[in-house]
């Protein structure tokens, strides 16, 4: 079997990365590739990873939808978050200006 390189092994995690983490990793990939002198196999694996990271970033930018939640504290002091529908001027419990 062809050994699994770290780059390949991490592929699954790319879809979990936050934008800044994915962009940072993409920057590292590019920096390594630009250094040169890598075995072809490594170059290709890096490039594939770079493409996947790029796709992750692009998808996050294109598809993201703002999510707003509201903290609620129960009697015991425990916090939980409930979704706030967009621009729902919620709440009569805490009146203010």
């Amino acid at each position, binding site marked *: 079997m062809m050994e699994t390189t770290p780059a390949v092994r991490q592929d699954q995690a790319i879809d979990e990365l*936050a*934008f800044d983490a994915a962009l940072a990793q993409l920057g590292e*990939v590019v920096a390594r590739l630009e250094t040169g002198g890598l075995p072809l196999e490594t170059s290709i694996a890096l490039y*594939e990873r770079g493409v996947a990271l790029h796709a992750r970033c692009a998808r996050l930018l294109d598809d993201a939808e703002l999510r707003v939640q*509201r903290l609620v504290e129960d009697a015991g002091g425990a916090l939980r*978050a409930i979704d706030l529908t967009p621009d729902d001027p*919620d*709440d009569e419990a805490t009146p*203010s*200006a």
Partner: protein
Amino acid sequence: MSDDRPWERWLRRDDIPTDGPPDPEPPPWAGEPARPAPGQPAAGAVPRPRGESADAGGETERGLTRRSPSTSTRPGHSASRIWTVGDVTRAMREVVRGAPAFRDLWVEGEIGQVTVSAAGHCYFTLRDGRSQLSCVFFRTQRLGSPFELRTGLRIVARGRLDVYDAAGTYQLYVESVQPAGFGDLALRFEALKARLAAEGLFDAARRRPLAPSPRLVGLATSPSGAVLHDIQHVLRRRWPLVRVVLAPCQVQGDAAPPTIVAALGRLARWRDPGTMAPPDVIILARGGGSLEDLWAFNDERVVRAVAASPVPIVTGVGHETDVTLVDFAADVRAPTPSAAAELVVPSRAEAAATLRAVRGRLDAAVERSIAGPRLALTAERRALGRLHPAAVLAGERQHAADLLDRARRAMDGRLAGDRARLDRAADRMPLLVRGRLARARADLGSTGSGLAALSPYATLERGYAIVRAADGHVLTHASGTSAGDALDVRLAQGGLDATVTSVRDSA
């Protein structure tokens, strides 16, 4: 008003010199203690008719002051005529009404006795160490007051001074009341600022940098104001990748500071269920308002909570010109709530531009790094081609061209549709190649990347091997080796460490 204006005659008769105005400076009633009024202020209406007499008892026959015209220091008039009581009262009223300072004045003092009539009007006295002043607070104004008057409170009352004929008293007709000290908010602001600054709460060194790209933004503001809407709008446009967690609080009034402190505390305690991380930053925001409206953000408890927050805080309170003490204690002060939202997140447009630039570098870098191997591969393929039937070789060439096409498309980022192109290309392939290609295509998986095709390993899938000498260079001629040399044989799946047992020179 009566046509009979004896005071005017008096004034004329006294031939007031131009340097001595009819209203002596200071007016005789100013700065002079009124006679202590043990009972209620005079009830009943003053210039306005009123339906009831509010006070029971305590009504005393009070002289206006000791300074009736007959006891004035003004010389030469005292015995010249006999005044009626009404004359005196009306004269006083005219004088009082004629003094601009009395039309709108602020009086600070402690509230003495308070009586509220059945109609809702409030009568009270304001006093300081030596004096007291009767005050009337009519129902309409009183219901708009932020608090109920009660004995012992120190307040600043704003209103006009007038004379109540029936009782012969002057009274303050109150328009509004505020707790004492609100009149010098600026002084209190500066005093608290100086005190907290001396403690180091506002030191620049305390300010923390903000995360360049927060994942979770805490928001402490009113859940019902326009501010929440505005901030959401900015974040949705600028960086919708962020998540927002709102901790509602009141942002105005005496009750607001504890709710703000509690909201900041909840946000700092909050852990995102996914990452178990606290918010990366907290926005503390409020829309514009008067200095009094914004006063909760000058509250010492709030300022201290902001300074002590474990999570960096960005304030956006009021308008650009408004400065509150929390602004000094915050890690970053934004001029408005919307500006605070702009400030905490990166720009999607800028991020997209950065991403494009990095992608360009990625493609250029991989082009450079595969240029050498690709040349070697071409040479290898040429050598192999000599061993194959011409028909297959033609197919291989076409395939190679196709691979390079696909590589370029991959470089362009136009990956969509690759699979369809691959299928069309396969239709043009000789059957022999098509079968192998199908296997290669399966290996491409679903990534959509054309890179597998760019790799020389796609060729290996067709049964070829790459043989490298110990120094890593690709062998194309047997003559470069001798028995005993170590070789690295690269196969489609894995590789071999091999040793040359003998060398066959070919023609």
